[in-house]
């Protein structure tokens, strides 16, 4: 993850790292890109840009370290830059709002949900996906990284350039927002969401 340590790989080493450490993550990278952009072509471009950058900056990658986290960090940064470029309204305002309003590390964990385990179990993949996709990008991202891709809090902190405490609180809030969505689906499915 460190960009300070510079290596000098031979072409053969570069190809080997690229093929054996970078390319095996293309499925996860594409899924992440698709869930960020919701568009097949944008997702393809984002993954392609990420791999080209990864190759260009391969000397900043230390062989044997976490290539997946390194690639995800590049992808996420490319997305932010691209997203800001594309959108006419700069996303800065939204982002700041999120940073100041949602990112305080003091979270009240005691909020309980009346969503029922059985209702969640019965939900279809599409419903889960739609609920996830409906979350704001910062919340969606932490859930993807943690629950879909299995990154640790520490890896997520490095990928997102935020402190671990913020990872923890943002994740907690993201799952609460997801539960709200799932609860409304459950109500539509006719599940009784009230406490017994």
């Amino acid at each position: 993850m460190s960009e300070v340590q510079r290596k000098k790989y031979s072409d053969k080493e570069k190809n080997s790292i690229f093929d054996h450490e970078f390319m095996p993550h293309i499925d996860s990278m594409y899924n992440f890109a698709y869930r960020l952009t919701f568009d097949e072509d944008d997702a393809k471009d984002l993954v392609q840009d990420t791999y080209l950058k990864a190759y260009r900056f391969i000397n900043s990658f230390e062989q044997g370290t976490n290539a997946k986290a390194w690639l995800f960090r590049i992808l996420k940064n490319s997305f932010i830059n691209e997203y800001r470029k594309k959108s006419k309204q700069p996303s800065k305002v939204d982002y700041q709002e999120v940073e100041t309003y949602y990112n305080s590390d003091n979270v009240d964990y005691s909020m309980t949900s009346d969503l029922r385990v059985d209702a969640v179990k019965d939900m279809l993949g599409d419903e889960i996906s739609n609920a996830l996709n409906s979350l704001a990008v910062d919340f969606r991202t932490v859930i993807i990284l943690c629950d879909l891709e299995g990154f640790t809090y520490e890896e997520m902190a490095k990928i997102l350039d935020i402190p671990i405490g913020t990872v923890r609180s943002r994740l907690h809030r993201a799952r609460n927002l997801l539960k709200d969505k799932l609860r409304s689906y459950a109500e539509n499915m006719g599940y009784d969401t009230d406490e017994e």
Partner: protein
Amino acid sequence: MDKNLNTSNKRKLNCSDESKCFELLESILDGEETTASKEILDEKLAKCQPCFEHYHLEKVIREVLKNKCTKHMVPAELADTIRQKIQEIK
């Protein structure tokens, strides 16, 4: 764990430190809490109804996200396109 569902009447109905307990339970589910022993977890779940419910809801949320979220197939030509572009910049 589910067999405990029938013994919910033995659990206390209010958690004295919900915020702290829930944070701990979520850390355990995320694989971040390695110091809390299984005994502590088991005891919490056996004795406290809010903790029990929160743990199982959080657990199932993680399971459905991991197992049910639609996977998007990588377009077949993407890997080849990337390799080709790499050859061009070499």
